[in-house]
């Protein structure tokens, strides 16, 4: 770089007047140690500026001096007693706003962090609450089912306990596909209602249904079809006013008008 050009470029004035950027200042300071003429140009401009300022200075009000110096004395006392640490590069009026700004920034960060924390906790609780509600609903439903079941069993027990109930044990036909089958008819001697208990019967094949018959004076009378369902101990069949025996055959779904004799599984006579 040509130092004369640099001197005439306005760099000296910019530096002295405090208009130079950090970078420009650094460049200037690195150059003037090596170039006495740059230093001379700077000194010259500084003197011109200083003279100008002196020649036309406006004096401050006289009372300002005592005000400023009493303030300096306070500062001086502070410094000596060491009560306050003075940071030389920080202008006095910007200290408080900075502390306040720093404090509010810290508060903001802390509050944001807390918000995130509480929000994640909140989401966690929502999930757990939902899970609890689901479990509770499930348990209520289970309890409902159990109650219904218990009521069913209680009514069944009531029927079986009834002394007016005639019991007809029906045992397996040796020639049937399942000789070990067994069923029981509970027959209310007053109302003539018929209830069937399936002790043991093979599962009906597809398209087939078991049918109960009452044998009245040697003739089979339809007493209804039934399916074997888990959890249903007694099936109410058709009302039969009188009968000497009961039998069960396997028929096509919906039942038949007359029994298929060779598909008879169980039979039992009414005693007494």
């Amino acid at each position, binding site marked *: 770089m040509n130092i004369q050009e640099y001197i005439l470029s306005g760099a000296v004035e910019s530096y002295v007047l405090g208009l130079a950027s950090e970078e420009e200042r650094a460049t200037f300071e690195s150059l003037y140690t090596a170039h006495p003429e740059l230093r001379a140009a700077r000194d010259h401009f500084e003197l011109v500026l200083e003279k100008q300022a002196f020649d*036309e200075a406006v004096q*401050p009000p006289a009372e300002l001096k005592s005000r400023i110096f009493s303030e300096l004395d306070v500062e001086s006392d502070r410094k000596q007693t060491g009560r306050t640490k003075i940071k030389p590069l920080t202008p006095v009026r910007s200290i408080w706003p900075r502390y306040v700004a720093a404090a509010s920034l810290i508060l903001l960060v802390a509050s944001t962090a807390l918000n995130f924390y509480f929000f994640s906790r909140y989401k966690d609780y929502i999930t757990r609450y939902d899970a609890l509600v689901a479990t509770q609903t499930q348990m209520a439903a289970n309890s409902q089912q159990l109650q219904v079941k218990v009521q069913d069993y209680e009514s069944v027990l009531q029927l079986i306990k009834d002394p007016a109930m005639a019991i007809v044990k029906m045992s397996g036909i040796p020639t049937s596909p399942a000789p070990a089958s067994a069923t029981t008819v509970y027959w209310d001697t007053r109302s003539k209602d018929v209830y069937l208990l399936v002790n043991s019967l093979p599962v009906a094949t597809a398209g087939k249904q078991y049918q109960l018959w009452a044998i009245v004076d040697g003739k089979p009378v339809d007493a209804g079809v039934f399916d074997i369902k888990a959890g249903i101990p007694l099936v109410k069949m058709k009302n039969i006013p009188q009968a000497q025996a009961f039998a069960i055959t396997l028929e096509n779904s919906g039942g038949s008008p007359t029994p298929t004799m060779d598909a008879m599984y169980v039979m039992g006579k009414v005693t007494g």
Partner: protein
Amino acid sequence: MAALKQRDNDAYGYLYDHYSGSLYTIVKQIVQNTELANDVLQEVFLNIWRRIESYDPAKGRLFTWMLNVARNAAIDTLRSKSYQNSQKNQELTDNVNIGGQSTQTNIDTIGLKKVLVRLKPEHRVLIELAYFKGYTHEEIADIEDIPLGTVKTRIRNALIQLREYLQ
């Protein structure tokens, strides 16, 4: 100089008597308000007192350093929130008192400001913004809506002119 760094009261008394006028002038030219200028001058001397260690004679004259302390303090005040707020409240009064600006016109026709009026208007406005209002080159480019390169060139040319007028 050593006496200043020792914070000797007599040395500061001399400093004040010698330089307060020049520094007061620049402060007044920037803040444009006598009462505010008094407060700023107080702060300028506090700052000089506190920061005297950071003054490096190799980097320039003591006056140059103090001038920049004064200019920075004045510009800081100008840019501070409290000042900007009070300024809004004052606008009305200022508009009413158009006739009563004799002291302010006075302060604007001395020192650097006097030389400033001899510059071309487009140069003058940039020095006003950069030196008396403390805006960076980038901010000036924004305010004046001209390219940053133009700002830099104009300021450089203005400074060259200023030096010649000051001789």
